[in-house]
């Protein structure tokens, strides 16, 4: 069923009787050509592009809970392509271009909204780094602008320009950055994939992998064995757990990242603001809530909940940057499990096991990457060669000393 304004009106006048389920609820078949493990944004996008762009095939997405229940449903909805390093920027810019045509492509309004993102800087060294980054972005085909203090003030006059401990000196801006309605991304891809025959199987936990002489034959699940020619794993925070079924250890730790939303407020903040002197970034949703976040809690966790110190750290950053939010109320906090890699950048690669492919290590940059991640992972699964924008996302980069370390923090996941 195709969605449209006309359809909405027609249904409204006929009591909404005609709406069909957004996706089917099929029972798993005995075998598929491709099994995607993980019904999150990346897994669903992979299935969608695999079916739409690459080939007609029997494809299933296996989700242990309900689709979109992972990080795609618990993030701060920011999209941007303001990366520094050659290994990353082409990929994220590819993702940004996919965002820009996404809704018409999958016929679902995910509210892709390019209201601009600014990263504030507070020292000369930060300004120099922003200049280096902005130039790298433009050379990779992205947009970037360096704003001075007054330009920042004209955008956001309520920031603390008066008595700030770390005065605002300017910002790096990407006007094409913005936010996307996160749940809608999962649902849109799920619906689009389902329309193209992909079986989306919920409440189906992968409990093992059947591997014989170096080749994957399928997966053991809570709903029985399901055969597959190729298995692609895209399970973010559960990566280590799932890949352990294949006997693999990963360059990865799982950490909790908390995010927060305030009560609904009349429009205050148009775009996305990232503080350069504290752990705080914020945007305002179309519903009116201030959506904000900060740093990860910093210890390995699968608990999907965090602790107070980070909550307070984020609020301190927010109050220092924009003291006008003092009387806004924090409504809800939640935690997502981040697949924090050893250099802060993802891995999209084959494994040593034939037919087994891996996609993970997104740290807390996974949401903005969703479309490109799905596309390039589908490309890898279908063609067995990496997509041109993802050639650096290899397992062996650590052995070779080719880390993609945007923050320059080295082999410590909780610092990325």
């Amino acid at each position, binding site marked *: 069923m195709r969605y449209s304004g006309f359809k909405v009106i027609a249904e409204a006048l006929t009591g909404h009787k005609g709406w069909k389920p957004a996706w089917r609820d099929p029972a798993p078949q005995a075998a598929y050509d491709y099994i995607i493990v993980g019904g999150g944004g990346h897994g669903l996008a992979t299935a969608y592009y695999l079916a739409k762009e690459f080939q007609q095939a029997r494809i299933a997405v296996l989700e242990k809970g309900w689709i979109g229940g992972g990080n795609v449903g618990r993030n701060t909805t920011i999209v941007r392509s303001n990366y520094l390093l050659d290994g990353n920027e082409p990929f994220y810019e590819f993702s940004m271009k996919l965002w820009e045509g996404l809704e018409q492509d999958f016929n679902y309004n995910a509210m892709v909204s390019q209201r601009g993102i600014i990263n504030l800087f507070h020292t000369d060294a930060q300004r120099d780094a922003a200049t280096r980054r902005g130039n790298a972005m433009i050379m990779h085909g992205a947009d970037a602008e360096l704003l001075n203090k007054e330009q920042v003030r004209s955008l956001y006059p309520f920031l603390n320009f008066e008595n700030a401990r770390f005065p605002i000196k300017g910002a790096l801006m990407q006007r094409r950055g913005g936010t996307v309605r996160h749940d809608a991304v999962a649902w849109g891809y799920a619906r689009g994939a389902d329309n193209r025959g992909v079986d989306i199987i919920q409440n189906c936990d992968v409990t093992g992998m059947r591997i014989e002489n170096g080749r994957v034959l399928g997966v053991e699940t809570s709903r029985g064995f399901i055969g597959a020619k190729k298995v692609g794993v895209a399970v973010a925070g*559960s990566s*280590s*757990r799932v890949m352990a079924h294949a006997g693999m*250890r*990963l*360059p*990865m*730790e*799982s950490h909790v990242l908390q995010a927060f939303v305030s009560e609904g407020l009349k429009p205050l903040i148009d775009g996305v603001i990232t503080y350069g002197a504290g752990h705080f970034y914020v945007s305002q949703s179309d519903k009116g809530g201030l959506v904000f976040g900060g740093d990860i809690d*910093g*210890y*390995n*966790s*699968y*608990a999907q909940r965090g*602790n107070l*110190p980070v909550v307070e750290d984020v609020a301190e950053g927010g109050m220092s940057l924009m003291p006008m939010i003092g009387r806004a109320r924090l409504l809800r906090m939640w935690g997502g499990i981040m697949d924090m890699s*050893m250099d802060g950048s993802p891995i999209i690669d084959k494994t040593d096991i034939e037919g087994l492919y891996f996609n993970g290590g997104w740290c807390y940059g996974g949401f903005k990457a969703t479309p490109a991640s799905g596309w390039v992972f589908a490309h890898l699964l279908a063609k067995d060669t990496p997509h041109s924008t993802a050639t650096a996302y290899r397992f062996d980069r*650590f*052995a070779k000393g080719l880390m993609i370390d945007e923050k320059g923090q080295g*082999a*410590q*996941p*909780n610092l990325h």
Partner: protein
Amino acid sequence: MIINHPLLGPRDAQEFIYLGDAALIHRPDGMAEGALERFIPYTYLRDNPAGSHRELWYHEQGDRSWLVVTRNTTTHEITAVEMARDVARKEGRSK
């Protein structure tokens, strides 16, 4: 979280800095044959279990002891806290 420091008793985890898997204790010998092959997994690969995890915490806002904390990563329950120096010695580290 609360870390029950072997010498100081219960302390808020906020006083500590987290490093990671206590397997880092077993640093390979850089002068040995094939050191590179050993350093790569040592530096980059982790078990990352959902469950009991032995991990290194540093009491930066305290007595500057490094501790080995055994903590469940799904419940955050802490079942053991030891001085990292004692653990390292017990596990064969010396000079």
